[in-house]
């Protein structure tokens, strides 16, 4: 059953602790909570049809195989991929980006070539390219970003050259929340013959995403940030690209034939899924997509947009607050980075924690962006469809106590 008060579906958000308090969970960019529907899907798998998929002729083995492959179809349809063969299951977004850097990057990047990323990339969409560039004698070129973490198309135009082999860009900054203009970026990258990898980790859970409409070449995202279990991710790739790639990880389940000194791999997507996959996680992802589709991604976006308008207004009124991305709620998802003047973000987060308000403090795995912003660290609140205005009020109220707790006056 689906409620309009979505919190009702999330046992963790309903739980009251010994002091009668519920958590105001505002760390959704780190990971999201799981609805009953997902928790039940995982439990039902364990209790009714747990088996190793693709490997048995008995009833439960066939059932898990069918469930597993039906999630592949569901994911394809959810992100607008032409068919399930475009969908590779990974162990997370980080795993997916590393696979592309190793399998595809190793093939196409050579000395003197360039890889283009933005200064707002998560370390997971930075370090694989930094290493690839270093190994190959290629250059890792950075694009700066605006106040919402978005790249500027003029700068992109200036930096794209015939040497640019790969453009790897986040759809949405995990610190500032702005939505990049991917359709334009893809067209510009393709015009110089570069391949575009989209890190959609912070977009797929929050806004409608259509890979064919955006015309991206590769796209990765991670299940645990979209109501589903951890240890599962998705890599979408255009068919000819997947076809030309050797698997980055090799082992059981991906071969047509193994001889002592040679191997013939299966076709994509199977050839990329070496070893036993996280079936329960994949089945949980299927249930999460069902949940999100029942709500509707337009509606998810609208809910977050409405909450963001409230949050921007409410936080702006907090004394001594420093907001790192001001402006209105347009063209962004539900992420706000901030600090309290004179207070280290770790202290702010700890004091908020004592009010059972969960936000994250730190560099958010985006140290180059921190350098760009001229800070060591920030606090970040990040919304999802189950958040409420009350959560945001509790955040603002908690923030108002911070300086006093530290003896800095109010």
């Amino acid at each position, binding site marked *: 059953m689906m409620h309009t008060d979505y919190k009702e579906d999330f046992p963790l958000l309903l739980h009251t602790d010994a002091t009668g308090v519920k958590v105001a969970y505002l760390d959704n960019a780190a990971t999201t909570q799981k609805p009953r529907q997902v928790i039940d899907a995982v439990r039902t798998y364990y209790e009714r049809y747990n088996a190793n998929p693709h490997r048995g*002729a008995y009833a439960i083995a066939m059932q898990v195989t069918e469930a597993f492959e039906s999630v592949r179809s569901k994911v394809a349809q959810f992100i607008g991929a032409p068919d399930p063969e475009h969908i590779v299951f990974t162990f997370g977004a980080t795993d997916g980006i590393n696979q592309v850097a190793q399998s595809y990057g190793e093939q196409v990047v050579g000395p003197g070539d360039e890889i283009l990323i933005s200064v707002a990339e998560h370390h997971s969409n930075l370090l694989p390219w930094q290493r690839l560039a270093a190994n190959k004698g290629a250059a890792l070129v950075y694009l700066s970003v605006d106040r919402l973490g978005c790249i500027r198309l003029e700068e992109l135009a200036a930096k794209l050259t015939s040497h640019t082999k790969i453009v790897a860009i986040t759809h949405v900054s995990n610190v500032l929340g702005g939505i990049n203009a991917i359709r334009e970026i893809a067209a510009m990258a393709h015009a110089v013959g570069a391949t575009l990898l989209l890190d959609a980790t912070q977009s797929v859970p929050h806004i409608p995403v259509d890979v064919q409409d955006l015309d991206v070449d590769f796209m990765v995202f991670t299940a645990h940030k979209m109501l589903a279990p951890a240890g599962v991710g998705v890599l979408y790739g255009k068919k000819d690209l997947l076809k030309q790639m050797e698997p980055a990880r090799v082992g059981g389940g991906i071969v047509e034939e193994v001889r002592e000194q040679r191997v013939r791999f299966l076709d994509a997507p199977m050839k990329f899924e070496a070893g036993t996959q996280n079936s329960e996680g994949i089945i949980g992802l299927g249930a999460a997509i069902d949940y999100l589709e029942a709500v509707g991604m337009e509606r998810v976006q609208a809910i977050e947009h409405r909450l963001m308008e409230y949050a921007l207004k409410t936080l702006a009124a907090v004394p001594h607050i420093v907001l790192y991305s001001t402006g209105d709620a347009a063209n962004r998802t539900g992420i706000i980075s901030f600090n309290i003047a004179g207070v280290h973000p770790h202290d702010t987060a700890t004091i908020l924690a004592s009010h059972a308000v969960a936000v994250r403090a730190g560099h958010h795995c985006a140290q180059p962006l921190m350098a760009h912003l001229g800070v060591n660290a920030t606090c970040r609140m990040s919304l999802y469809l189950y958040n409420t205005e009350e959560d945001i009020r509790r955040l603002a109220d908690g923030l108002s106590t911070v300086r006093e707790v530290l003896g800095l006056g109010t």
Partner: protein
Amino acid sequence: MGCPPYGRCLALELSDLYSQVIRDHNRSRHNKRTLCDPTVTVPGKNPSCGDEIVLSLTLKDGIIEDAAYTGVGCAISEASVSIMIDLIRGATVAKASELCHLFFRMIGSESLTREELEELDEAVAFSGISRMPARVKCATMAWHTLQVALQNASP
């Protein structure tokens, strides 16, 4: 997702899976031999078990004059290739190609007309295989191999 009864192999009865036709072809093995001078020879592989069945055709003037297979497979895959060979022996390449399409449509759970089913003759023994996903590849391997053979043979 409902749970199928354990003892049912996903809703296909054992006697439907291993029907008389299939059992007969498995025992007779009349199409399991080496052709003297085949026009085309194509291996077909089932990666889940490592099985290989090699299909050979002798073609003359667009007619499949003879066909045979070697190699080993499970009861389903050997019966499937044997039944297929009976069907295509003497047929034109065009006709064989058409039978391929019919067979895949049947496996894909499309409902065929009575005439179409008659064309497939004994191969309708595999019509229920889609309810047994682990064995679909066993039934289709022969026909996939035939498609490749026909392509390789066409000038």
